[in-house]
């Protein structure tokens, strides 16, 4: 019995018909893929994309230069330099995130005691040189400005 069944399946290309059944049935449904970059996905607010540094409503920077983000960072991609500013206050000199090393784990954001650092929905980060992928304070602040008032990782 088994041998006959096998013989029939062989001459009718049964397996191929089985496969084509899926092909033809899918032809009639809506596509699940997106025509990126023409069609864009909807990114949820808790998405961990490019970091952003935020400003207070009055325009001053939120960052207090504590360096805890750098302390928590598992890959050591955050470099921060500080010094004594006027009035003996702590001053942020440089702030750099080397995106090539970053895991986008979000620990830096968790560590920030003043919510100055957040993550945004930016995900198109490819570039032509390594240097351009070192995000400085200015770039991060600019990204923060882009997301001012929008929902981000923190809210």
């Amino acid at each position, binding site marked *: 019995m088994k041998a006959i069944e096998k013989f029939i399946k062989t001459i009718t290309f049964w397996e191929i018909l089985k496969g084509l059944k899926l092909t033809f049935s899918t032809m009639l449904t809506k596509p699940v893929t997106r025509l990126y970059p023409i069609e864009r996905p909807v990114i949820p607010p808790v998405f961990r994309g490019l970091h952003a540094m935020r400003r207070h409503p009055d325009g001053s920077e939120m960052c*207090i230069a*504590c*360096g*805890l983000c750098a*302390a928590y960072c598992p890959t050591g991609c955050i470099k921060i330099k500080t*010094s*004594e500013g006027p009035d*003996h*206050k702590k001053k942020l000199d440089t702030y750099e995130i080397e995106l090539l090393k970053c895991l986008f784990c979000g620990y830096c954001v968790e560590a920030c005691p003043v919510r100055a650092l957040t993550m945004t929905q930016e995900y198109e980060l490819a570039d032509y040189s390594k240097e351009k992928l070192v995000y400085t304070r200015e770039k991060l602040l600019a990204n923060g400005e882009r997301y001012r008032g929008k929902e981000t990782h923190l809210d």
Partner: protein
Amino acid sequence: MINIKINGIPLSLEKPTNIIEAAAKVGVHVPHFCYHKELSIYAGCRICMVEVKGKPKLLPACATAVSDGMEIITESEKIAKSRRGVLELQLTHHPLDCPVCDKGGECSLQDYVFRYGADRSRFIEKKREIPVNYENPLIERNMERCVSCKRCVRICAEVQGDWVLSDMNRGSRVTMESFCGSEEECVHCGHCLSNCPVGAIQSRLTKNQVRPWFVEREAETVCPYCGDGCTLYLQSRENTILRALSDETYTKGSNRGSLCVRGRFGYDFPNNPERLKTPLIKKNGSFVEASWDEAISLVAERFGRIKSSAGPDAIGAVIGGRNTNEEAYLLQKFMRAAVGTNNIDNMARMGHINALTALEDAFGLGGMTNQIKDIAQSGAVLLIGNDAAAENPITGLAVKRAVFKKGAKLIVADAGKNSMSKHAALRLTYKPGTHGRLIEAMVNVIFDEGLQDKAVEEKNKVLFGRINVAYAHNTPEKAQETTGVPAEDIRKAARSFASAPAASIVFGKGVTASVCGYEDSLALADLSLITGNVGRSGGGVNPMAGKAGEQGACDMGALPDRLPGYRKVASDEDRKRLGSLWKTEIPKTAGLTVMEMLVAAAEGRVQALYVVGSDPAFELPDRKRTADALSKTKFLVVQDVFMSDTAALADVILPAATFAEKEGTFTNSERRVQRIRPAMKVLAGARPDGEIISLISGKMGRPMDWEPSLVMDKISVSTPIYAGITYDLLESGGVQWPYYEEMKSGTAILHSQGYDDRRAAKGEEIAAKVAAARSVKDDIKEGYPFFADIAVSLYHSGTTTRKSKGPNLVVGGPFAALNPADAKGLGIGEGDTVKVRSRSGFLRLPAKLDAGVPQGIVHIPNHFLGAGCNVLTEVILDPVNKVPEARYWPVSIEPEGR
């Protein structure tokens, strides 16, 4: 034997100790704020409470001694509850600014709060608002963060002995403030900040710049400044030194956790932008940048040409006190083997060499007989010609410890200002240059009153007899006339020195850097000998080296008449032995000392000089003569880290690496060989001194390995006192030479098995020469009523501290300190300009009134460019070692108004 159990772990102890220390032995940390093993027990923080079986209440671990059968529990719910309570009370006032507090990440309070979960206080009170104190240029005090453990107050009083800090107000309002609001007494040692468990007292140099996780590299190294050779930790990030830290365990090296202002705050010169970064060659009177190849070839070629035309003795080399043993060894080997001359000297010629040769002649080995920490065991200390609290601050701490902890009688004998005076039982102020008479009179009194050590006398009758006769003529009354010290004071000093169970002598450049330096060092050796203090713990004769590398350079044979290990050039056997190791012939004639080299250079006999890590034009006496000799030198090569007065005259400048960039060893004054390790990469363009020397040597046809560990292997073969010392051995800590391989230990105290008196019968001949040299000095006194005390300041050491930020914030420029009475007589006020004039030149300096300066003395720190005291001095040499008189010089003072 005490058997106890800590958290169930059994432990047996020989001596009773407190619970914190006992627990540390089995690796259990008991939280504490106010306890510190160097300090008295205060038991005020109440966080170290532990349970002891059988006791109903919790006991403070710091103030409870362990006793046999004790069962201690250091962590339980009851204990945690108690600690949580204490922390909550602390947090009533402590600000929650951890993110911006520099202590964050290494703060005890933060750690304990994290551990016991008392992250906020239930006590609601207004937080204290106390402004941060920025009075001190190096140390800030933020009393809002204080946990009132009083460690700063106690360490300032008990270890440093300065009593600058004190607790003010009561109860929850207590703050640590400077006593009476004045920080004048502060010596900026930074003990308070290294001991603060929280962020209340911190360094201003690193303020807001360092977080513990920024540190990329940490190196355990040795401080490059004075001869104390303190263990120091350097932390760096991206090739920049972040900070210098002391050893937190308080166990390592000679300093055991203590540092002075130079070590703790003078670390940043390796990153100074003024560092020399490329070889420079002088062409038509100005320096032109050159490649290393070009510079090395030029040096090798010129050396070679001078050697063939004028003979090897027309080349000389000098090495300074900032270079490692390996570099000193390579340089003397280069001079002896590649060039073929003994013209090699080091800057210990400015004084320290007198002490070393005197001690060698008196006892058989040239080195400090005891160790620095051993001075703390003394019953009496004679501190002569050395301001230990400024020149060798860690030795000063050992002396203070003897005074505070052992009740030792401190006799401070000095012609000039001495900051140790305030701790002294007896202060003897002699006239400059007469310290020898004072020592002799003390020996005289000891024999006169029969205070000498009878047991030792029994064994050394001949020697004692000779000493007795030699000093018999100098009675205290006679000494009173010459020294100006009352005879009764000399008697008192001699009695307290001789009657102490162990008495040590600490001396420095005030004795050694004078025409009679050798003779007077011998007198000190005699004084120690007749009181039986040689080879005794807490006794000994302890000369202090001024620079980190001085002792090592002498050990390595960077001396014209000595080979490595103080073997003599004059001895055929020693020369042959070393010659066979080096496979070359060692030149027979002794070379020239640095002073003689300059004379020879001026006369044209020496045509090339190779100056490594030193600045003769600034350091040696008689500026005009020295500069003249250096500019007459046909070919002057200077190898240094910064541009200096000497480098400006050079034909070729080779940029070298600093201590923070290289491997090597330093030998401190107590003969301890210690490793230095790089905390950063060698500055681009510069090279380690050893490599430069070996490059020149290689070009001249004698390649040498310069890798420091390989050099040390060679040193241990060719230098008998360093036999068996390798980098592996030094990995875990320093070793004091002579090292005995069979016992696997160095020698803490020399001559405990007896000594070898090698004084030849040259005594009288030397005495006559010394007297002649002294009379030359007496001649120049006419018309110059004052003596300039050309001193070492606590805050500076020379070329390198000038380029460090910290020391310059406290003392940024030269001054002339005068006794207020003298100043009044001359009509000089604080800050007035005075002209300090000697026979050969003058200096214009701002005046400072200081009651610590004896009358008739003007104290001038000799560290600042443009105010070098060698403008005032002339060359008068000591007849034995050719050490120039360089400490006290007759001057007159003319007020010039504001």
